[in-house]
């Protein structure tokens, strides 16, 4: 083993080791955040799809209602 490094030489090594740890956690959280963004986009898309479908069904019901009314008259 080498003799202990003085503080000014040891500092960068210690800083580098802790930075590696923080960088790994940060990259992991960033990837998870990107995935969360994708989930949010998918959710928006599905909400729009559900709303569109509901609007279509309402329009179809209304059309059917008008058709039945016209037949009675």
């Amino acid at each position, binding site marked *: 083993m080498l003799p202990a490094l003085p503080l000014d030489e040891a500092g960068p090594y210690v800083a580098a080791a802790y930075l590696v740890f923080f960088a*790994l956690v940060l990259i992991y959280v960033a990837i998870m955040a990107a995935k969360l963004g994708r989930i949010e986009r998918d959710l928006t898309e599905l909400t729009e799809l559900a709303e569109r479908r509901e609007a279509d069904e309402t329009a179809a019901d209304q059309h059917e209602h008008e058709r039945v009314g016209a037949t009675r008259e």
Partner: protein
Amino acid sequence: MTYGKGLRPLAALTALTLTAAFALVFFFAPLDADQGFVQKIFYVHVPIGIVALVGFMAGGVFAIQHLRTRDPRHDLRSYVAIHIAIVLALGTLVTGSIWAKASWGSWWVWQEPMLVSFLIVFLLYACYTPLRFSIEDKERQARYASVFAIVAGAFVPLNFAAVRMAEAYIHPRTFATTGGGIPGDMFLTFLVALAGIGLLFVTLWKYEMASKNATFKLRALRRTLAGDELAPARRSAAPTL
């Protein structure tokens, strides 16, 4: 099952414990008589190494549960535990390498059983995701991955015991069985750092499980709403529920 439950207090506790650990490292733990300031790397390097190995073994335990019950949720738990443990193992190798350069003057020492055995464990688990990706049938993929996780998980403590029994070249044995050991102040700091990184593992595991669960629920909802409009699922190493 909702994995997001309790995630916020857990994340806060993790942040608090890690902050306390790093404060103890730099303001409380004494300087090592032999290595001086460089020894501070110990408080990040050893805990992430231990948590990575425990994570690999946890992956094996979930895999046993998967093979016993055939419940795909256990396969997902195993996959996520191994996934996070691989990230921590990579961190252990890099921080260890930095410490080696500062202490021994070399980034890597091939004669040292501790370093080489950890690299073998890391490379073994590096095969886990490609193994999963190579199998298209999801049921078979989960079964094979579970067998791999159990065998590799059993290898971890055996490998650790073998290294403890082997003669050290230059790498110190952290908690020596004969004589020495670390002083109380350093040990307390180490325990707080270990608790912080252990909590970080659990938080990230729950976070990823919650994310995967939400993705699967959305996929099921899309299937219900979109029906035939749904694009075929891409080939993936990740389990599906």
